[in-house]
């Protein structure tokens, strides 16, 4: 390209050495560079591993946590609860606490919803009168059973895996649910799919449904 851009400074050009074969000095300089490259690699490996620590450790991030007695949750109600993150440090302060919703739909039929909207993670609020969860950020709305009712979410609320042991309700929790980090690691429960749900299957990757109440009726 015949761009006329200022040439490098004259003194630098004067000092440019003629091409010559490898001398002892240039060979030693190359050895020095190679040594530094090797040491850099040795140092970089633990540094990269250190930076990636939170990712390399990620299998550990689930534990069974007791969230209360079964009798704490009256049938037919949805209650806001708080549990402590099993992987917390003393300096986490209030952020060690995690809220969630426990729904006791029918005797011994529990669902535990993550607080985070499936859209962008804001805290959804439960309105018992209209039996809806509403999100204050972008207007996502969910039915009592966690199915998406309206707004931008592309799936229902995230749910925690749960079990009842010795009269206590336990959930498998420990990480913030996002579209790829489920609240719990287990595969989607394979419920009998309802005809209505098939209508929205294109956007509900994992319908977290225990099939109570209305569902997926926003197509219209």
């Amino acid at each position, binding site marked *: 390209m*015949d*761009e*006329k851009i*200022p040439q490098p400074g004259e003194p630098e050009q004067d000092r440019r050495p003629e091409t010559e074969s490898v001398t002892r000095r240039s060979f030693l300089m190359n050895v020095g560079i190679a040594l530094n490259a090797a040491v850099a690699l040795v140092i970089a490996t633990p540094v990269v591993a250190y*930076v*990636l620590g*939170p*990712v390399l450790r*990620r299998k550990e*991030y689930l534990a069974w946590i007791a969230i209360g007695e079964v009798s704490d949750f009256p049938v037919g109600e949805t209650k806001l609860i708080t549990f402590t*993150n099993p992987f*917390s*440090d*003393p*300096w*986490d*302060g*209030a*952020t060690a*606490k*995690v*809220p969630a919703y426990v729904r006791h739909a029918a005797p011994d039929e529990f669902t535990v919803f993550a*607080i*985070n909207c499936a*859209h*962008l*993670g804001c*805290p959804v*609020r439960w*309105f018992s*009168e*209209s*039996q*809806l969860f*509403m*999100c*204050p*950020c*972008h*207007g996502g709305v969910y*039915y009592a059973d966690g199915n998406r009712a*309206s*707004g*931008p*979410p*592309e799936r229902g609320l995230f749910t925690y895996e749960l079990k009842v042991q010795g009269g206590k309700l336990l959930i498998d929790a*420990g*990480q*913030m649910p*996002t*579209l*790829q*980090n489920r609240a719990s690691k287990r595969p989607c429960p394979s419920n009998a799919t309802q005809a209505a749900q098939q209508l929205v299957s*294109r*956007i509900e990757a994992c319908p977290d449904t225990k099939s109570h*109440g209305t569902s997926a*009726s*926003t*197509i*219209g």
Partner: protein
Amino acid sequence: MPGHKEPWYKRVYDWVERRVQLEGPVKDAVLHPVPRSTASWWYVFGSASLVLLILQVVTGILLALVYQPSAAHAWSSLELLNHELPLGWFLRAMHGWGSNFMVAVVLIHMAQVFLFGAYKFPRELTWIVGVFMLLMTLGMAFTGQVLRFDQDAYWGLGIGASIVGRVPWIGGQLVHLMLGGPMINGATLTRFFALHVFVIPGALLAFTGLHVWMVLKLGINEWPTPGRIVRRETYIEEYNKLAHTDGIPFVPGAVWKDLVFSAAILFAVACCAAVFGPYGPKGVPDPTIINTVPKPDFFFLWIYTVLSFLPPEMETPFILIAPVVAVSALIGLPFVAGIGEKSWWRRPVAVFAVMFIAVCWGVFTNLGTYTPWSPKMDAWSGAAVPVELLQGRTPLERQGANVFQEKQCRNCHQLGGLGGERGPALDAVATRLTEDQLYRQVLLGGGNMPAYGSALSPAETTALVRFLETLHPNYQPASQDASRRVVAQGATQTPVR
């Protein structure tokens, strides 16, 4: 030596100068000739950005003397700065307003550089470095918002994590990398502290040095004149002619305007800080306090708006693709349009693009200030039904108004100008929907409305629809189902025949 007769400070200066030998390069830099046309008020935004960056570094260091980057204590340390340390509030306000001004001035600088064609040959790399500086400035604004560790910061991180979690395949890992673990907590705050205090500012300062160095080496862009075409073969020569034959030394010819404007900007920051005070912190970052309406800072409101208007199935592709396209377009610009006309009089597409982006940004930001897409969480209990909508109604219809409030319909629907704006205002709903359509809409939902079939008893539904049917103001007729009249007429006519 003649130095003996000189005053002591001159001798000290000479002593230092003989050792550092900076006088030459500095003189070259400040006295270099610039085209006379560049001594303009339009050319002050770059230097103002630099001055604001220095202000941010200084106020940032002063805040770091007190701030605790610990999730348990950050919020309290900000409160201490606000209320207990003398003038701590002012330092916080200066840093907060300085950040606002910096983003604004950087954007104005960028628009000016774009409209003046300054990104063209040979200043392509200056522009590209500038694009990265813009990204770092926005990165500073976002990480700074996180360090103001309140409810907005906590849930803002949640939004950030949810966005990152949409990256295919490695999204889950990226979320953990971003949060420093599985959840938003102390580890998240410390890594955002490191980003905000060490990583991004370090890179930003290095890039600023490079940017200013290139401005000095390649010269300040001349005032664009229609018809003066940039050609790679001749531009440098033409520019040197402009600078040397008709030019003036940068100091003091052009610099005085930079100085005046920088002083004005600093004064404006100080005034805003003194009058409006510091930003937050808002509520304690306790995730169990869920009665919160998280909102990003002013310069990110437009993203907030865009994210609520995208249809669900477009969201992930848009979030992942649009930023890449935008940054690529900015970086690719000097390679696509690196030569040719510089004047805005001959670049209608460029002018239109800036206007279009500015209008879109303004509209989205304005919408973001009042979020019509969000349900108003307390409207059902806070906004009363207007009295005139209850006068002359039957008990059943009034009971319907009760149901309307009780079932949180008001959170999304306005009556008398109060309530949520997620759904349509219902002051005249009876003119639009017949009785049957109202039943259907309430029970089955549709068109972005949830179905209330399971949340309403038949009696409640009847009362609600009866109330809604009365909402046809100004003697407008209520809409009626034409087929019903036919059926009714048929019923009355049949016995006659």
